């Protein structure tokens, strides 16, 4: 049984006087013990919302979330709080996620004070010290305030806070995107080592493919709050089957990620308005390789290879398909 099972997760944000924003649309995935699933997508694709829904920091409109067989959505608030020892989060903004009036030691100790209130003060202090050292901080930094630390150190504090209750699942919401490149590498290495040491499962939310290929075992590509394609890292990155994934990878300039060298793999236009979802395939309005049936057939994830799923009904897509497309029916390019 997987550690986490998510089925049909859906969330829209009602805004007074305006149309609701459909942020997450029928998203399903699983995460195994010790596994990292990367959620990638552009900003506005609903990645962070999914992270918050999983932790019930936001309430989903529909769907089920099971962690270690427990239905999270059925839990009442006190049982949910108890469950939080097992699921933790590291946020994108290291400084903003730390209370400026609390010392590092108190910030890291808080989850233990909540979940193991009977623990003695010496034990607590010892656990805080050990956890700080595990994320590469000195024990005497427990006395400092967050503002006195560098961005990388602040993020280590955030990681220490997430880890001290020994959770099973950690949601990493773009943990390195606001850090310098050199610091990014250190943080990723720590996350990787911690996973090995404790058998942690990660939901790694990112738009940065180079960090994804370092950390992830499996990848899910998100577009308009919907998973376009999902599968093992190699399959999705080396052999992407969805036009959106292909365009995303082609747009990414990194020598480490080898993609078929086709510069013509571009989508037309911008992400459509998430208040009105397109019928059929969400990509139809922007897709250069579309056919008429894209709009009429229901858009579902199909098995394309071992554990590899995608929505495009034309998959597998070849180079010829794209070349044909750039000559003829690319939407928006004729005008």
């Amino acid at each position, binding site marked *: 049984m997987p550690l986490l099972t998510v089925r049909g997760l859906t969330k829209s944000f009602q805004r007074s006087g305006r149309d609701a924003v459909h942020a997450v649309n029928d998203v399903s995935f699983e995460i195994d013990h010790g596994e990292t699933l990367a959620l990638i997508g552009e900003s506005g694709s609903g990645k962070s919302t999914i992270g918050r829904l999983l932790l019930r*920091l936001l309430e989903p409109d529909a769907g089920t979330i099971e962690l270690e067989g427990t239905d999270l959505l059925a839990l009442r608030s006190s049982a949910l709080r108890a469950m939080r020892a097992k699921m933790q989060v590291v*946020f994108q903004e290291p400084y903003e996620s730390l209370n400026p*009036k609390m010392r590092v030691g108190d910030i890291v100790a808080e989850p233990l004070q909540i979940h193991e209130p009977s623990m003695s003060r010496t034990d607590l202090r010892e656990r805080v010290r050990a956890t700080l050292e595990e994320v590469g901080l000195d024990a005497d930094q427990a006395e400092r305030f967050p503002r006195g630390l560098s961005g990388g150190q602040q993020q280590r504090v955030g990681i220490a806070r997430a880890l001290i209750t020994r959770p099973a699942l950690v949601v990493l919401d773009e943990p390195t995107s606001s850090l310098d490149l050199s610091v990014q590498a250190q943080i990723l290495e720590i996350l990787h080592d911690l996973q090995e040491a404790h058998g942690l499962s990660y939901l790694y939310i990112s738009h940065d493919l180079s960090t994804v290929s370092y950390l992830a075992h499996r990848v899910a590509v998100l577009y308009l709050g919907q998973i376009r394609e999902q599968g093992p890292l190699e399959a999705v990155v080396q052999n992407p089957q969805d036009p959106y994934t292909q365009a995303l990878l082609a747009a990414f300039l990194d020598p480490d990620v080898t993609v078929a060298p086709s510069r013509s793999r571009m989508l037309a236009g911008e992400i459509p308005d998430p208040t009105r979802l397109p019928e059929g395939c969400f990509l139809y309005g922007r897709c250069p390789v579309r056919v008429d049936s894209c709009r009429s057939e229901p858009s579902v994830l199909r098995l394309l290879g071992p554990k590899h799923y995608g929505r495009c009904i034309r998959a597998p897509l070849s180079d010829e398909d794209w070349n044909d497309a750039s000559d003829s029916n690319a939407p928006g390019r004729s005008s």
Partner: protein
Amino acid sequence: MSDLGKRTLEILKRFLSVLRSQPAIGVGLTVVLAMLLAGFFLPLPYSPTRPDPLNVLQPPSSLHWFGTDSDGFDVFSRTIAAAARDLPLALIGTFLSALVGVPLGLLASTKGPWSERIMRGLDVFQSFPLVILAIAIVTLMGNRLENVVIAILIVNVPRFMRLVRSEALSLRESRFIEAARAVGATPIRVMRKHMFPNVVGVALAQTSIAAAQAIGIIAALSFLGVGVSPPNPSWGLMIQTGVRSITTGDWWVVVFPGLAVLIAVAAFNLVADGLQMRQENER
């Protein structure tokens, strides 16, 4: 025990560093403290509550430094003695307002229809001129010192609530509050450990402003004959007596208690300014 000692020492150190960075706070606090000590302990040349009917409306002299009023009270003795009554009253009223208003403001920042309703109720309440409302209530409830404190509460509790609520509402959206929820903190714990320490600074600055206003409210109340009753000394009462004499050129009766009010208000405002500056520097 040693832990407690360490904490007090730390608070003391922090206090000293605050004074060093914002000397205005130190100046204001020193003036208030000096006025309080003088009010309680300074030996007075004449009794502040027993008039000398043979020496009315004497101008300032070596015998009566600030002169005497139309009843023969020594203005100097009364101006000093009034500090022992007006200042503690203002401070108690203000601290009670903060004590009630800050937690209520935090509670009113939680999501829910009732918190909106409380704020709308407050709107209705605050649409009255509050000082006039306070005077009316004190008049109706009787001329007692406790009622002066209640008047200060009526004016200040809604202000504290509003201020703290608006700060708390923006805090609620911040990442570290979400992080606190994510580690399993109860709503009460979030308010106590995470929101309160982050609003206490603005609340403190507001406390000093409110104390300055409370001096004014007390003066206004006793000027109108509510609150401190004669022959007990109060700055407002003295100003009221003095106003009658000012047309005949006997300026000293009204000027000295007026100056005392001015100095007390300025001192509290200095503290408030210093605290506000510190808040802004910390951001």
